[in-house]
Structure formats: structure tokens, C-alpha cells
């Protein structure tokens, strides 16, 4: 058995990764309704209702105001801070007609062109991005 047995130690390590929020139980619970809202966008009828009046559609879901605002703003980092997971958010990306590349790029603070150029050049290096504590 190679898996770590101590769940607290297992979870604590996740906070040491720069710019990364792992979808743990705590986040899954916080983001439950936000993520269920995203799932609803798998139906075209719901996508249409959402597009027609985003605010009204969001108000049908028991989310916090901060969660609704993050979605209205398409502030995906904020949404993830508030419990979203990217695979649920993807339903919103696609409802908006955005690709993963376009939507994910907005989370980096880079322009779409710069992000695309970085990916074509081989992507972001892991150097210095592995561990906050160890600075590697």
C-alpha cells in the first residue's frame, strides 16, 4: 500500500502547490450548488434561459451572492476559490462559445495571445512551480 494513510497530511500537501486549488471535500461542499448550476447547462433549454437572463437564472440556485457574482463576471479563479471545479465550469465556457484554451487562459493574468503563444512554445515550465515551501 503506497497511499498515504493520514488524510490530514495528504490534504495539507495540496496547499503547498503554487496557484493551484485541489478539488477536495472542503471545496466540493462549498461549491455544491455552484457546480450543480453548471451541470444544468448541459441542457439546451437551460442554456437558453441562462443566456436570456443570467441573473434571474442564477437566482434560482441557492448559491452565495459572491458565487453568483463570480459567475456573472466570468471570474473563474474567484469561482474556483469559492468551490467551483473546472470540469463543471466548462459547461459555462461552452455555453459562452469559448474553448478550454480561451477560458483557462483568462485565469493566468496573461492576454489570450500571450497564453496561446506560451503554449505553442512548449507551455509553462514547472521550474519554481512545484512547491511554495521548497521554492522549486
Amino acid at each position, binding site marked *: 500500500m*503506497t497511499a498515504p494513510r493520514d488524510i490530514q497530511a495528504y490534504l495539507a500537501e495540496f496547499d503547498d502547490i503554487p496557484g493551484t486549488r485541489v478539488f477536495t471535500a472542503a471545496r466540493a461542499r462549498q461549491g455544491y450548488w455552484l457546480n450543480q448550476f453548471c451541470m444544468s447547462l448541459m441542457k439546451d433549454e437551460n442554456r437558453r434561459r441562462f443566456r436570456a437572463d443570467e441573473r434571474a437564472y442564477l437566482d434560482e440556485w441557492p448559491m452565495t451572492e459572491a458565487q453568483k457574482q463570480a459567475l456573472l463576471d466570468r471570474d473563474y479563479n474567484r469561482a474556483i476559490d469559492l468551490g467551483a471545479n473546472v470540469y463543471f465550469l466548462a459547461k459555462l465556457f461552452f455555453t459562452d462559445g469559448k474553448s478550454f484554451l480561451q477560458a*483557462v487562459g483568462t485565469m493566468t493574468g496573461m492576454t489570450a495571445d500571450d497564453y496561446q503563444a506560451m503554449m505553442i512554445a512548449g507551455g509553462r515550465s514547472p521550474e519554481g512551480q512545484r512547491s511554495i515551501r521548497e521554492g522549486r
Partner: protein
Amino acid sequence: MARITAGVATSHVPALGAAIDLGKTREPYWADCFAGYEWTRRWESEQAPDVIVLVYNDHASAFDMNVIPTFAIGCAERYVSADEGWGPRPVPDVIGHADLAWHIAQCCILDEFDMTIINDMAVDHGLTVPLSLMFGQPAQWPARIIPLAVNVVTYPPPSGNRCWLLGEAIARAVASFPEDLNVQIWGTGGMSHQLQGSRAGLINKPWDTAFLDRLTADPEALRGIPHIEYLREAGSEGIELVMWLIMRGALGPGARELHRHYHVPASNTAVGHIVLENG
């Protein structure tokens, strides 16, 4: 007697499916990426597998926050393509192999794997993109598919070791199926990618390359990689690589590499692909 003849691994990036569906595979951005699958497409048409055990993860399509199975095996006759937000991919329905799927499900439960049996689900890009990569755009898929969905979204996913052990159990199950069937097992997802936050776009070619090397050179070492290493080295969505270990665990120790392809980028992701002959 059914036998697992080969293992195939590949990334399952949704943009690869979109490029195929929209006829863009020869555009400059995509040409090199798709070229690496041409060998496999020829090889697959020669191999003509009867059944593919297709290990993938559902990306919040069939399973929402209300039901999160660690290992879900599809025992249905047929699966439709999921609507992930822009309508279902225009691909044929996936035809199951209910006899073998139920056989594997039963054997794995007797073998003390805590399977969830699924008889109705839509399949998302995680399953359909690999089919498109290997088979193109046929009127119907040339093999029956047994979907095996692994939770890699909500933590913790299964350990790499547990995935490997499930692969071994699947191999035992297939070997005990009386019908003469050519079975492949595919592991999908990965390689390095991160789809969130300031670290999005992370690609780790040296680590990915070592992972591909070790599939034949030192597969046992892969079992012990902890989740935190996938997250640090291969990005938050690189954890999908644990699914490749179900494929690898189902092959013998002497599995031989027939083909390899590695390309950066496809959308946000490092595309990795390998074909292993069982042995």
C-alpha cells in the same frame, strides 16, 4: 478464450475531438499532433479488436456532485454522446459488450473491488475523443466498448497502486471469459496539464517522457507515485495519468512498446500516446 492483446494510452483533450469534428486536423496548429496517430490508425485497422475496455474519466457529465463512483463499469448495450455544453459530439453511439462487461464486473467484485455497475449513462469527450483519434469518423465504431469511468475529479482519486491492481483483476476476468475475443485495454487522460489558476498551462516534458519510458522500463515504479507528485509535476489535471496504470496493470510484465507520440500543445495539454503489445 478472450485475451488482452494490447494496451493503448492517449490524452483525450476535447479540442482534439473538436478539430476532428470541424475538419481541422490538417491545419498547421493540428497537423503534427494528428500525424502521430496515423501509425496507430493503420495498426488498429489490422488488429481489429473485438472489444475495448476503455478507461477514462467522466468530466462532470454523467456524474454530478450527487453520485461520485470511484470505479464505474458500463454494462449497458449502448451509450450516447453527452452534451457538455455545446451539444453532443457528432459521433456514432457507442455500442457496449454487455456480456463481457457484466463478466468483468462480477469477477472484479468477487475479487474484492468495490465496483459501481452502470446501465445507463452518456459518455463524454474522455471516452469519445480516443475513439476518434484511433478510428477517425466511421459510420459506426469498429469495436464494442466497455466504458470504465474512474473518479479523478473529486479528491481523493484511487491511488495509482489501486488502479494497477484493478488492471490486474480485469486481466484475470478477461482471461476467464469463455468466448474467443481480441480485447484491448485503453488508458486515457493526461499527460501534463493544468486547467486552472496562475499555474495554468504547465507542461512538464521531462516528467512525461520518464512516465512513458517507465511504462516498459520500470512499470512497477509507477505504482508508487503519490497523488502529490502528479499534482506538482504534471499539473492539477495530470492526475488523470493514474488511469493509464489500470491499462498497464492489465498487461504482462514483458509488455513491449510498439509506438509512441508526444506533442505540445493541444489546447492546454501535452498530448501523450503509446501503444503496448501485451507480453
